[in-house]
Each structure stands twice: as C-alpha cells, then as structure tokens.
C-alpha cells in the first residue's frame, strides 16, 4: 500500500429478512446496492466497523452488508448525516460468514428441530415439553382368564387311601 493511497473498501448492502440466528441467509437477502467506504478518519474494527458512505437512497433500508476487504457479513444500521453521507454501524454475523465451517463442525446437540429428517420428541427426557399437569391419557386392557376346566368349585383334601 502506498502512502497516502486509501484502499477501497467495497460494501455490498442487502435487506435481510430472516432471523438473525439463521446460519444460512442466502435465501433471505435482497441486494440493494453497493458503495465504498469513504476515507476513514479512524481505525475500523473488523468485527464492529463504523464508517461512512455517500448518500444513496436505496440503501436506507439496508440492514445487512458485506465488506469485501474483511470478507465478512455484517448486520448493519444505517443513519444519515449531513453532507450527503450515510453513517453505517455494523457488527459481524459470524453465522453466515462461517456457515460452511460451522456446518462441517461437530457438536453435541442437545436440542434439535430436525436431524436427518427426524423430528419430534426423542428418548431424551424433555423437561421443557408442555405436558398437561392435570390430565392423563388412560389406556385400559383386559387380559382375560383362560379358564381351567370347571367341574366343581370345592377342593376337598381327605386323608385316606
């Protein structure tokens, strides 16, 4: 990098419509436009960058962005200031940024919605499951007597013979 030359930070802005906890946001991103970070007057934290861009009305609704220099995805908040500039406060979205690595990671999963197509309760007791504290389901079954052959009802034991 040459002295006095400011490296261009390309920023791509999106509207993200999914839960922030979603690891994969690819299907929920609507691209709004791109811009470049104006000459920063201070250091930009890679995890929580705050910077300014030229005003662009289409980017007002952006809540998500990607900064190519950092190779990271960010949640961002846009605010406008004077001099036709927009102030951006962003925080890194580690889930989407490291999506592939996360998916290839191993873990002990203690709660899941779907595991290889398997859903619903498992054999691990789930104390959060809202079981009715009052009612129960009763199933009654009858095991019928397979009766002995009946002749008389009196069993008489007599010494003799």
């Amino acid at each position, binding site marked *: 990098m040459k002295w006095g030359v400011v490296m261009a930070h390309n920023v791509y802005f999106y509207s993200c419509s999914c839960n922030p906890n979603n690891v994969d946001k690819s299907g929920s991103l609507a691209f709004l436009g791109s811009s470049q970070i104006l000459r920063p007057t201070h250091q930009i934290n890679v995890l929580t960058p705050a910077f300014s861009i030229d005003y662009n009305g289409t980017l007002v609704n952006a809540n998500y962005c990607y900064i190519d220099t950092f190779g990271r995805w960010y949640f961002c908040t846009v605010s406008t200031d004077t001099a036709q500039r927009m102030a951006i406060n962003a925080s890194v979205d580690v889930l989407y940024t490291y999506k592939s690595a996360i998916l290839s990671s191993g*873990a002990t999963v203690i709660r899941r*919605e779907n595991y290889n197509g398997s859903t619903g*309760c498992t054999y691990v007791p789930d104390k959060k499951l809202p079981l009715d504290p009052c009612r129960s389901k009763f199933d*009654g079954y009858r095991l019928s007597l397979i009766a*002995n052959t009946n002749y*008389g009802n009196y069993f008489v*034991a*007599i010494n003799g013979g």
Partner: protein
Amino acid sequence: MELNTEIWGDSSHQVLQSNTNSNHIAVSDIIPDIYTYYDTYGMDEPIDNSIALWQIADNSWFNKVLWLRRDSNNVIQKAETTTINAKSLWLCVPVTYDTNHNIHFNPSQYQCNLWDPDSTSTYYVQPNTNLRGIVTGFNYNRLQLRVTVRCALFDPDTKEHASSGSTISVYDYFHASDPQDRAYKDYYALEAFNIFVGTNDGIDQTYETISLNNPKSISARGRLYTNTMYNTPPTTDGYYKPEYLYYCQNNSVFGLSRTQKTTIPQQAVFGGNTSYYIGGFDSQYWELDEFRVSSTDYIATRCTASYEEVLKQLAYFGLWFNETDTGGTIRNIIGEGCTDDNVILPEIIGGRTTGNFKRGEAAGADPQATWGNTWRENVGYTGDKPYSGDSGDTGDLSTVFHRPVLSGSCIYYNMITTELKQLINAINSGYQPADNDQFILDFKGVNPADYISSIIYYPEGFTCGNVENQVAIPIKIGALELTLTSYEADISNQNIVSFGTLPIRPYYHDFRDYAPYTTIDLYIPFCGNVELDPAVFMGHTLQVYLFIDFPTGNCTGVVMRDAMVYDTISGSCGVSIPLTAQNVGSYQNAIKSAEIALKQAEIQRKTAWLSIAGSGLAVVGGAVSGNPLAVVGGIAGMLGSVNSLERAELSVKAAEYQLEHIAPSVRSVSAASPANALCMDYDCHLLIKRPVDTDDYDSIIYGSTVGNACCINDYLSAFHGLTVCSNIYLNGAISDYISIDDATFGGNSATAQEIALINQALENGVYLP
C-alpha cells in the same frame, strides 16, 4: 384420535384397537392376483407403528379432497372446498381367513372370521358383518384383522395392474347421517380409494421418473360408488351396484359426512372438459383429472407438488417407502427393498401420522423398523436391529414352568356342591347312636372330621375340575371307604392359570413412554396390583399367570416379560371353608358325659336309699332307748334322706332324658371368609397412564422454537432448523480460512472473539439450513 361418528357401529379406532390390540396394520405377504395384494395384519408385536397405517391425517391433502356435486341438469360440478379433521379409515370390513390363521379382508365374503390366537378352537365366525351394528360384537382381545392393500397402478382402462406404480385401496363402510336413511337402508357401500405416486400426467405413473429435480404428483382415484347406499345386499362378486349417488354437501371427504341422494349420473360433464380444477389453483387441493361412469367408475384426481412434499404426503399415510441412493427415486411405497441407506419411515404419534418422516439410518434405528419378525422380513427391510440384542444381553432367561404334585397321604377331590353335601350327610347320618359302636370301632374314637384336611372353594375357572377321561372314585375317610364317589382333582395339569399375553406398545415412541411420565399398573385377580416398570415392558409382551396351591388356597401371580418371569405377587384365590359346627366327636363326648351323669345320678340315688335305711334304724333304736331327742333326730334325718332320694331320682331321670335326647351332631359348613375377593373381576386389568400434551401444544412450533431434547453427536450439517449445541468442536479450518459463499470475496481468519461468538450462538441455538 378423532372418532368418526358418522360411521355406523363402533368407532374405527375402537374396532381396530379394542378388538385387535393393534393400532396399525402391517404388510405380511403378497397374494398374487390380477392385482398385487399385500395382505396386512394387525400388529401383534411390541411396536406400535407398522408400515401400512392408512389414515387421513391432519394436514394431509386428503383432508382437502373436494368432492363433486350434481346440479339440476345432472352435471357434475365441483363441491365446496372443505377440510376435515383427521380420520382413520380403519373400520370393520368383511374379512376372511387364510391358512396362516390370519384374518384378511375379502369383499366377496360377507362374514368376519376371527381367530383367537390363544385358542385352539376353530375360527369364530361373525356372519353378516357387513350389516350395520354387528361390528360391535367382537369381544376378543387379540383378534387380528387383515385388510387387503392393493398395490398396483389402478387404471380401469388398460393399466389395471401396471407394475409401474402402487395403488393402495382401503375399503370402508359408511352411511349417511340422515336418520331416515339409517332407518330404511341396511346396506352401505364400501369405500374404495386409491392412491399412487407418479409423474405429472397423473395417469400413467412410473416411479422411475420421479427425482428430486422434477415436479412430482400424487394421484388418487376415488371410486364413484363410495357414496352409494343400497336397499339390497351386495352382489356375490363383492361389489354393490350403484343405485344412487350420494354427493357430499359440505364438510365431507370420502362421503364420510352428510350426503344427499341423487340418481347415479349417466355421464360426467365438466364444462366440456375432462380436466377440471375442482380444488382451485392452489396446489394443496386436488385437481380433477378424469371422471368416468362405466363398469369401473372412478374419479381421478391429482395434485402436483415438490418431491419433498410428495414424501410428506406419503408419510401421512404411514407407509414405509424408500428412495434410491442416486437421487430420491421412490421405489416402492410399501417398504420393499428398504435398507438403512434408503428407508424412509413415517412418524406416527399417538396413532396418527404427522407427515414427518425419518430417513436413512435415523429411520433404521427407529423402533418401528428394528423389530425382527416375519413382516419385517417380508417387506425386505435389511437394516440393523439394534434392539434385538435385548435378550442377548441378559442371556436366555426364558422360564420353564414345572408342575410338581405333592399329595402326601391325602386324596384330593374336586366336588360339586351336591357331592360335598352328600359327604357331610354321610358322616352325620351314618353314625346315629344305634350305630355308634360301629362308628367308634371305625375311628377308634378319632373324630372323622379330622381326616378332612381342607375344604376350599375356588371360583369358576380357577378350579381343577378336569374330569374328562376320569372315572369317579369312592371317597375314602381314613380306612373307611364310603359308597359316595367323586372325581380326583387334576392338580398336576391345572395348577397354572393363564391370562394370556398382551404386547405393551409404546405410544409416543419417545421419552414420554417411560417413567416417570408413563406408568403401568397391572391388576391380577386375587393378588392385587403390580406396578410395572415401562422400561422393562415397553416394547415387550406381557404374560400373566396364576399359580394356585389348591390345598391351601394360596396363589402366586406371575408377571412375565416375554418368556421371562419378572415379578411375582402373592394372593389367595381359594376360600377356606371352616368346619365350625358340632362334629361327631363332640357328639360322642356328649353321650359319654350323659352316661357319666346317669351313673353319678344312680350312685346318688343308691346313697340316698342307704341314707334312708340308716335313719330308720336310728328311729327304732331311739324308740327302744326312749330317747325322744334321738327319735326326733332320726325322723328329721329320714325326711332329709327322702328328699335326697327324690333329688337323686330326678337326677337319674334327667340324665336318662339327656342321654335319650342328645341331638346327633350336624356336619355343616360355616360362612366362607374372606370371600370379598370373589366379588372382584377374574380377569387381569392393565392400566397405562400416559401424559398428554397441553391443549395448545404444537409439535411443529415447539420443535422450531424450543427444540426437542436430544443428545446427538454429529456434524451440524446433519441438522436442520433450530439446533442447540452443547460441546462444539469447530472445524479446524475455521481459524485459518473463512469460507465465503462467493469465492471472489476471498477469505480471512476468524478471530478468537469471533470463535467465541460462534460458540455462544450455537449454545444459544441457531437455525441451520
């Protein structure tokens, strides 16, 4: 489960479950026919979910089938959109049996042949099963109901049994809700409905063309006569000839609701087009594909959906199926060729399919697929049997019952009431005072009642009265052989009473089936209640026996898990009858006492006479001597002796009277006690108490918001949706390379802070793709 109150007779749920103890029906074998029939049978194994559950589950498309109505011009028009609650199609169907003692459905038979596995008797035949009301008459606990599942592509024109698809037909009875119809119509048509999976055309279905990347469809054809009601019995070919068409008004599916009668249409017209969207343009509704009125009337409908949705819809039917490992081709929806790699099992909770399914090994490890048995082999499932090691872990603990006979010096008789009374009377009447000497001679003063060790009453069914092939023998009391006869008790063969077997099936197929959530209480007659550990019995067969110790009346309830004795409980099923009345021995004592009293009285009388004689001499002497005091004294003494004599005479007479009037003893039995146990039911009762979810509980929402508890070690790529982690092993690459979807963005290394954020997020729960 929702009960279909529109169906005559018992509810479908009860018909199947109460009478077969089987929630579901499994495919057992294939019967070659013009169609390929898969015979099914009620599951009598410790797994609840079979492979061929057929039902209309909540959210299934079949809840949204639109039926037709006929307008004033005899033109069939679409009916109103409707959705019904889940219903089970299981109902009483005319069945017959095969050589394997199973019951199966055969529309050409009009009777229900039922086989009781515990009985060696012939089949129980319930005639005219297809008449309403008869279906409630089944009282067997372990009936097996067999329903034919037709597996062929149904095309009434040319491809009736094409091998390229699968069709499942389930037949059912129904009737209209109109009381008038109930009163006048005795016969109701079978319900037939066919479904198969195939391509977009909805008619010529070939499963090979189904893949993940192509749209798929499920086609279904409802037979037109499903809504028909008849005045006459079905014809000998097993089918009803349509007389009327009952079209559904609303809130109806399959005609299991309010219908309205009309004459059968001669021609179907759908705006001049045989393709008509009766369900609107929402793919969740069915498109009318074809409608014909002919000798094989049918209505063909179809619905196009994604591959996953097709699987989901299949899962609604509770069917096993599989997909190839090359891309999701549905091979067969009956489960043939399933392996751990390709098997797909539907999720069935509470006897109802949910539309969810398990794939691959996760499915193969499901208890539903793990029980090694005939049907499992028949459907070709070759996956692991992780639970088959249960018996191997414990060794062979099969219990062999022995039947020891310890008779001692007794002879055991099994008597009816009359014989017992005769025995008592014989003891009493045979030893009147006139025969007393002989009596004393026989028993040498021993009370003959002492020879009777016990008299115990046993309730019906618990006796040992097997008199078949026996000859009545004389009753012996000690050395004395009476002329009375009775049968010797059959202790050796009848000291074990069985209550049969009952498979204990899981209901939820998860932790709720076990303690402390589920409790199992077993009532054994004459013994009491036993609490069974669900962990021991769930998925196994319960057997209950009662060992009876006939000489004492005691019994032992034996609870078995499969063939192994697991628990015992003591009780008493015989009511001992005490011998409390005066017996013959006391009678003899009374005789002897009276004789002694008589002799004492006679001695008293002699003494009195001697006393009188002494007094007289004294008087004489007194007179001679002239001693008046002595005379006075002698007179007084004489008078006293006379009084003694009178008393002595009275005593003699009293003793003689007593001796003459000693009542012969009566051998009687007193009230049996404790007899309260006889008032209780003589059958075992098993009560399983299970937890229920709260009314507002939604398993899908719960899974996506809270997540179901689990403990699975795997890569996170195997999880989808909400996932909460505990111990995380982040991929090593994460620290030195950032994976970005768009490679042009390059990569960076994750910082320690970022890794901490990832861990934190995973521990708090994330939604995985």
